[in-house]
């Protein structure tokens, strides 16, 4: 039971990234593998500012502000990436977009390596150091917050898609960008929206995952993005709810395999799960189409 709870809390953190992946995929047909590194870069900078002060000004930002700064920087990176890299690729084969996000991830990670070094950055929790005990499982603050934020994001997206006009525009763009454009949907705004929200979620995920999982390393967050991507594929790449469900499955699977088999076997279990789902049900558990 305790492992289950821990697994769900990890899954919730992965889900933050997975929702970004699906949102970007639905809107722009680009499968982004940069969702780990975009947030990681933001949080790297935030941690540096907390420790050494903002350059020129010299203000040391308090711990809780690192989350905000990480989100802002991540969203900013996503905004730039969308405008100058991803948008020119919208009409190109989807493989090109995937490779471009790979390039973005590689660039950010290598930049982190250059600026912050190879050593693991100790990450202070932006949401305090309290913990709760639930069914024998000790959950540190970032994990609890990740659970609530993930639930909140899911709820917000539900309302957004059901109730708002822009939500409808997003769905229309996802359905058929050309028709949506003809019907007067501001398609470029939808693309920008998807990337900025995806980037912001990536920032939250980094700021909550790194403190709970023992620090931040270049490429480290990409290995968590890998779980989010696996979750999104398992749940169905075109379904927000599928991404959340898939991420929770990945989190729980890892937690249980880690507890009952071995820590090393977790990654193998995730690989086997993705392979199995794609062989048995290629469109994912809740997905509608297999095409990417």
């Amino acid at each position, binding site marked *: 039971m305790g492992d289950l709870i821990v697994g769900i809390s990890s899954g919730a953190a992965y889900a933050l990234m997975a929702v970004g992946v699906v949102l970007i995929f639905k809107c722009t047909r680009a499968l982004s593998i940069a969702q780990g590194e975009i947030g990681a870069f933001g949080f790297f900078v935030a941690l540096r500012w907390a420790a050494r002060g903002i350059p020129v000004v010299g203000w040391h930002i308090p711990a809780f502000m690192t989350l905000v700064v990480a989100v802002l920087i991540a969203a900013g990176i996503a905004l730039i990436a969308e405008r100058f890299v991803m948008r020119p690729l919208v009409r190109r084969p989807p493989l090109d977009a995937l490779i471009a996000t790979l390039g973005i991830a*590689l660039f950010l990670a290598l930049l982190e390596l*250059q600026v912050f070094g190879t050593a693991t950055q100790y990450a202070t929790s932006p949401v305090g150091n309290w913990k709760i005990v639930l069914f024998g499982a000790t959950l540190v603050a970032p994990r609890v917050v990740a659970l609530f934020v993930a639930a909140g994001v899911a709820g917000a997206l539900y309302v957004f898609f059901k109730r708002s006009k822009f939500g409808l525009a997003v769905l229309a763009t996802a359905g058929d960008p050309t028709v949506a454009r003809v019907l007067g949907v501001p398609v470029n705004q939808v693309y920008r929206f998807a990337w900025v929200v995806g980037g912001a979620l990536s920032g939250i995920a980094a700021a909550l995952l790194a403190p709970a999982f023992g620090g931040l390393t270049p490429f480290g967050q990409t290995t968590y993005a890998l779980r989010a991507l696996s979750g999104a594929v398992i749940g169905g790449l075109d379904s927000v709810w599928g991404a959340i469900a898939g991420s929770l499955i990945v989190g729980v699977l890892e937690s249980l395999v880690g507890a009952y088999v071995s820590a090393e076997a977790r990654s193998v279990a995730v690989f086997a799960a993705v392979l199995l789902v794609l*062989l048995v049900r290629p469109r994912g558990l809740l997905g509608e189409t297999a095409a990417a």
Partner: protein
Amino acid sequence: MKLPRLDLTPQRIAGLVGVAVVVIAPLLPGVEGVQLSIFAGVIATAIAALSLDVLVGRTGQLSLAHAAFLGIGAFTTVNVGGRGAPWPVAILGGVAAAALAATIAGLPSLRIRGLQIAIVTLALQYATEQYAFKNQTITAASQSLDRPGFMGSDTALYFFACALLALTLIVRWRLGVTRAGRALLAVRDVEGRANAFGVEPGATKLLAYTISGALVGLGGALLAFKNAPGTLTSLDPFVLMRSLLLVAIVIVGGTGSGAGIIAAAFFIDGVPQIFESVGVPFTHVKLELGTYAPLLSALLLVVAIVLQPAGIGGVLQDRLERLRRRGQDPPSPRPRLVDLGAASDAAAHLRDVPRGLSLTMPVRALLEAKNVTVRYGGVNALSDVSLEVRRGEIVGLIGANGAGKSTFFNAASGFAPTTGSIRYRGIELLANSPARRTSYGLARTFQDMGLVRAETVTENLLLSQTWLAKYPSAAGLLALGSTVRAEADLRRRAAVALELFGLDHLAGERLGDLPYGTMRIVEIAAAVAAGPDLLLLDEATAGLGPEEAHALGDRFLALRDELGLTLVVIEHHVPLIARVCDYCYCLESGVLISEGTPAKVTADPKVVESFLGRAAAASGGGKP
């Protein structure tokens, strides 16, 4: 004996210069053993990137696990060789292990053609890192691989590496010129139709993963011997970051370009190791090239994919091509007028192919359709259609848009869910796969082109003959004698078919660069090259001018009279139907409404009404 004149194209000159540089490199002053060892490592990276390119270029799929495959190959080599196996066995072990791992990663491609498969490889990369490479039993910490005597010095190792690189390039080249490579392109671009050429999509896709894995295994084996004696001390070449860098090398180098990828590998992997820091002349500034090169390569990757997706290789190819064509006018993109008599004589043997059907029973009708119905959901695209095509006739199939003409072709060639009966030389077709029907002697064209636009005209004609290339793919890669002969024969057939359609001057052009009408004629030539008895042509004259359509009509008659082919043509061009067809059927909304001689059918009031509406038919308003 006259020596064959060497055709010194700029491409070949560039290639020779490249080989010369490689051979002379170790003799240059200032090059030491250590640097040669670094070069060997760079070559291993180049081999890995070249193998990744097989996958990216030929299947449109991305692998993010090639660094892991490289490691699997390397550690297997250490494990096998370290236990006393001779070096060729050790290398084969590494190749086999990497090929197996890659094939497993490719399994989902049997079910889907999405980018999700890239995520499988990403998960595999991480799992291999976490599970295998951190396990000291697997990483052979206790094993020690020794270099065989001939690889003793660093110079020898370097030449051994060059030999493996050459082997990789040869396999890539053979893949391009044999059935396996063409089948891959067909599956990538026209998967749903590849069957008609005799291509088996599932096996073909897995083959790409297997070949790519085997080649990267070769690179792994090289790394193992580079670090011998001993085992591999560093995991750096096998981690996720390296997988991403390999993708960067392929894209910056340019997919499909061996030279471009080798150059990119040298820049991205070699330069940082060889020149750790470079002093800028006349200043005291030292450029930390070693540290910034990877960062620069990531930036190059993003820039390349946005601005120059063809990479270094693409730019190079472009330049060389322009150099080759300097002073020459580009060939006219239209079919030439040819002496049909002579060309048909040359093409007469095209139908001498081994049929998948031993039966030679004389039947009156070559193709006999009875009560053919095709249903899509609740719609009957074709209902209860019965018609026959007699041997040696040109049969026209007319009807307004949506009448079910193409659906009938789909039913006959195996691309539509069909009930009823379609017999070909007395054999029921519906139970047979599209590939089998091709081997019986059926060939068709598609209304919207079923060929690979990114390839040359000749390549497409070879592709359509895949069912005739019966040799195993592996034998083709190794260039065994019989496969070389078989390929030469296919090329001869392709040339003859091109000649017949007046396309020989366009043999080397990229199909997608030609005008639409010409592309359609290329498709007919490809169908004819496959050596059919019955040819189904879907709107052959679309995109052609009046004279060209007329010339095509002459070719239809030549195909019937000189080659003895039977044709079914879907046409909107009524004068052509009247001129060439022996018999004619008219469909409307999936139902056969008229049949007979072209004159009779085009005068039938029901047909006129179907084309022009009731009022026109009532007032006798002209022919459709």
